[in-house]
């Protein structure tokens, strides 16, 4: 039944509604595909029994005419979302055996709408990384390989497991999170669609915290329409997250396929960075041409503080992380190492439980918040963050959405950037600005490079205007006609 895993989420839901197949059949097909793809290391925990129970319950609901919007659709869950009774590790040693007693709001919303959980997906430890190599469970391998090459490539990060699972047809869609680009860069590296919505659209409750003012959940999916379907269910106000926005969730699918005629699309000149491959520039030019063809007006804009977004991020995010991760003290949950006294127990527990990148960020965060440096670094970064948000405010007086590349390169080899933290950080150069400003950003595949690897384009929208983002993405998806899939080698 491998054909069932090739379906889009929308196609599967339509097939279930037409009684072409059952959720149990659809789920079983995915369980088999997952078993056959363990070499990718996308799933760090498979929950087949639970999946089949949920699928059977879905079939029963559908038989009674009570099917929800996602009923019977098997999904993967990034292992940063707490799942009740199912181990949730953030891909860290310190939470290696953590079994939450509660369910995150976002996943609760998906199960409310009938979705089926296949298992938990790999990620960079505590979502800190751009290549999945900081995972305690080892990196995910990208299903895509360069033409005539067996080299293992990164699926990107931090949501590398989510992106790889969707690309390899190991789920119909997946939850993901994005603090600096962790949904969009992996989507670009794997030929999938990912959206980070406006900050506050999705509840952060029950999502293991990294940098609370930047973290936002969103889906990774096979098509723009599928991403809209998933975001419909994931979004919504939640009293348990004080930054959750109390606004209605529109039906995002209504915007996909809508005409983009007359929309003003901004092209920021600062995103033409030194050393950007010509193919990415060409893809960007193609995107501009497609939108022009569809009736959009293209406007060159300036976002002058773009180059300062990453250094500002690498103060703000580690500062918040150092505070958030202070909770891992070895007392209430998680790993505990022994020591001669309390301080030593803390120090040994955290030294043993956190990986190198997590420790590096905690140390930077602690440093920039420490006495004597707070104003020079942390306060300065918050002011630069204001300047970045103002850049976008100015842009919105001239344009309705912004088009950029998603990442400065295609997927690179595992191990290639791991010895140079700053080279790794530069992966997020085009995505991090929207986290700092709280804006929605979507990545969709728009072409292949000369090596046959997928490249993504990013659409940035005004706050709460995911609708326009989905319309523009739909227009590009249609014009690009991207249908390539990774050749199965696993």
């Amino acid at each position, binding site marked *: 039944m491998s054909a069932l895993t090739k379906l889009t989420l929308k196609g599967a839901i339509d097939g279930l509604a037409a009684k072409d197949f059952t959720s149990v059949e659809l789920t079983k097909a995915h369980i088999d595909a997952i078993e056959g793809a363990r070499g990718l290391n996308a799933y760090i925990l498979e929950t087949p029994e639970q999946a089949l129970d949920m699928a059977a319950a879905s079939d029963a609901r559908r038989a009674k005419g009570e099917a929800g919007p996602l009923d019977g659709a098997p999904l993967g869950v990034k292992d940063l979302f707490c799942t009740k009774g199912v181990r949730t590790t953030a891909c860290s040693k310190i939470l290696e055996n953590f079994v939450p007693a509660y369910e995150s709001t976002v996943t609760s919303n998906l199960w409310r709408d009938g979705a089926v959980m296949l298992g938990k997906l790999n990620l960079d430890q505590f979502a800190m990384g751009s290549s999945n190599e900081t995972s305690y469970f080892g990196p995910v391998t990208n299903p895509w390989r360069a033409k005539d090459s067996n080299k293992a490539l990164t699926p990107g990060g931090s949501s590398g497991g989510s992106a790889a699972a969707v690309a390899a047809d190991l789920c119909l869609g997946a939850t993901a999170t994005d603090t600096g680009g962790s949904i969009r860069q992996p989507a670009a590296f794997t030929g999938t669609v990912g959206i980070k919505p406006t900050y506050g659209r999705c509840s952060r409750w029950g999502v293991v915290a990294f940098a609370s003012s930047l973290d936002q959940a969103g889906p990774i999916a096979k098509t723009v329409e599928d991403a809209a379907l998933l975001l419909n269910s994931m979004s919504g106000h939640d009293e348990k997250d004080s930054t959750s926005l109390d606004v209605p969730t529109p039906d995002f699918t209504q915007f996909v396929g809508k005409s983009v005629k007359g929309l003003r699309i901004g092209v920021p000149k600062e995103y033409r960075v030194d050393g950007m491959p010509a193919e990415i520039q060409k893809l960007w030019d193609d995107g501009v041409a497609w939108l022009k063809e569809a009736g959009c007006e293209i406007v060159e804009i300036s976002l002058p503080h773009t180059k*300062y977004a990453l*250094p500002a991020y690498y103060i703000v995010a580690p500062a918040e992380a150092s505070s958030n991760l202070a909770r891992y003290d070895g*007392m209430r949950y998680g790993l505990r190492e022994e020591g001669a*006294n309390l301080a030593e127990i*803390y120090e040994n527990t*955290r030294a043993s439980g956190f990986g190198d990148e997590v420790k590096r960020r905690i*140390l930077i965060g602690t440093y920039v918040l420490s006495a004597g440096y707070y104003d020079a*670094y942390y306060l300065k970064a918050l*002011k630069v963050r204001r300047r970045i948000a103002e850049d976008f405010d100015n842009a919105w007086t001239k344009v309705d959405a912004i088009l950029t590349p998603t990442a400065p390169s295609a997927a690179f080899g595992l191990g290639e950037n791991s010895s140079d933290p700053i080279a790794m950080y530069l992966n997020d150069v085009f995505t991090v600005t929207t986290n700092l400003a*709280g804006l929605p950003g979507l990545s969709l595949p728009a072409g292949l490079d000369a090596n046959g690897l997928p490249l993504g384009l990013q659409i940035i929208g005004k706050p709460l205007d995911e609708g326009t983002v989905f319309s523009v993405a739909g227009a590009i998806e249609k014009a690009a006609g991207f249908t390539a899939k990774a050749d199965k080698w696993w």
Partner: protein
Amino acid sequence: MAIDAATVRKVARLARIAEPEERIEALTQELNGIMTWIEQLAEVDTDGAEPLTSVVAAGLPLREDVVTMGGEPQVVTGNAPKSVSNFFVVPKVVE
């Protein structure tokens, strides 16, 4: 504003992360590399810029000060490395 080994030791202690002495020099270099890259923020004119701490414009919501969940100590202590009778067991800190 270069970071020296003494600063790394101090910050590691503040962060409650044991860093073995043989890691200190490499960490000093790594952190210096990152902080030097971050120094470019000094170029930005931020005079008059209000620090942006939250992109959510609305004020924090208030609710009635009543218990909404709880009464489940066995659940709360369920993941504790050590617990006895629904209490967390922690090392002795008062002599």
